[in-house]
């Protein structure tokens, strides 16, 4: 399991990625992140909801309330245009980060 310190700056990116192909809600997003990371990363509940609050405040996602299949009220999130732009930005930032860090990585 990855320490959350390392990944902190990219939680928002992961959530935005999950919303690229359509709206989703809290648990589904968290489950898909776990699945996609092959169980190597589990996003904590509070990290997830902090990110929602932050992303919505910055206008990168929008939320709407819907009644789910079980009849429970749920909040669905949808990525906005500026959210997509931000996602792009973070992706190229990661490219550079990766290139830099790679230079300091070698087999021992």
């Amino acid at each position, binding site marked *: 399991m990855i320490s959350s310190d390392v990944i902190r700056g990219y939680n928002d990116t992961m959530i935005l990625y999950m919303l690229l192909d359509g709206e989703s809600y809290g*648990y589904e997003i968290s*489950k898909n992140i776990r699945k996609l990371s092959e169980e190597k990363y589990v996003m*904590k509940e*509070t990290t*997830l*909801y*902090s990110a929602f609050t932050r992303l919505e405040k910055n206008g990168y996602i929008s939320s709407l309330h819907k009644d789910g299949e079980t009849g429970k*009220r*749920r*909040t669905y999130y949808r990525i906005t245009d500026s959210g997509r732009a931000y996602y792009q930005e973070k992706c190229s930032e990661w490219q550079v980060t990766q290139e830099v860090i790679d230079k300091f990585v070698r087999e021992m």
Partner: protein
Amino acid sequence: MDVLSAYLDSLFAAWPRTTQVTELKREMLGTMEEKYEELKQSGRSEHEAIGIVISEFGSIDELMDEMGIQPAGEADLTVSEETVRDYEQAVRRASRFQAIGWLCILIGVAATLFIAGLNDDGGFAHWSDGQAYLFAVIILLLFVVPALGLFIAGRNAKGNYDMLNEEFVLAPGTETYVRRQMEGFAPLRSRSMVIAACLGTLSPVALLIAGMQGEAKTPYGASIMLVLLGGAVFLFVYSGGIQAGYQRLLQLGEYTPEKKEANRVIARIAAIAWPLAFAVFFISGFLYQRWDVNWVVFPLTGVLFAAIGGLYGMQHRARRKV
């Protein structure tokens, strides 16, 4: 799931109950329950499932920081132990001043009545009625003027502690000190209350006995009754004032944060309403000679205040529930 809901409740206990927070809590509970159900369906026991959900919950501080929320316990103002001790002394002094002030006023009125009685009995045979009247007024003033001074001194003694009207927390450990002091004061307080109640109930007896001795003796009875009442008021004001001081420090009774808010609002209205009531009283009295009915403005204003206080409290509670 009661366990998960109780867990969230305990974590959110210090949060303000705004719509945003309630919504967030509901949403998080939904997520946790869904996770729990899936874990159980994948063959985990109830205990295991709850353990996993809680271990994956994270840190509530992270969420608070992000939402810009300060826990309700961390009010902006901390009152130090030194301030608390100073305040305790100030309250005792102020309560003593006020209690003696009331005693003076009642003794003053009693003395005036006593002089009036003596005068009727022919005690001032070589004085004219006018002279006796003047003497009575001078005696009354001799008591009332120092009493007013004591009231002002009492107010000033407590005047430097306006911050206790705002939201505050006591410095660590200080609350225990205040509680201990309040408990230590309790026996004295209950004794004072019992004695005061006895004096208050017994006081009319003096009037009754004097009345039976003949109508001329009634003023003496009345003045004894007033002195006894003075003793009762002294004990009530003194011990009540100290008790109120402790309650104010612990933010109990009349001094809970909600009550304080309500009291602030009511104090603002009072600053206008009571002078207005007095104006109505004097104008209708002096200009229209309606002294017979105009006193009604005082109980009326009082009732109006009770109504405003009640309405405000109801509205406030309703708002907090949303």
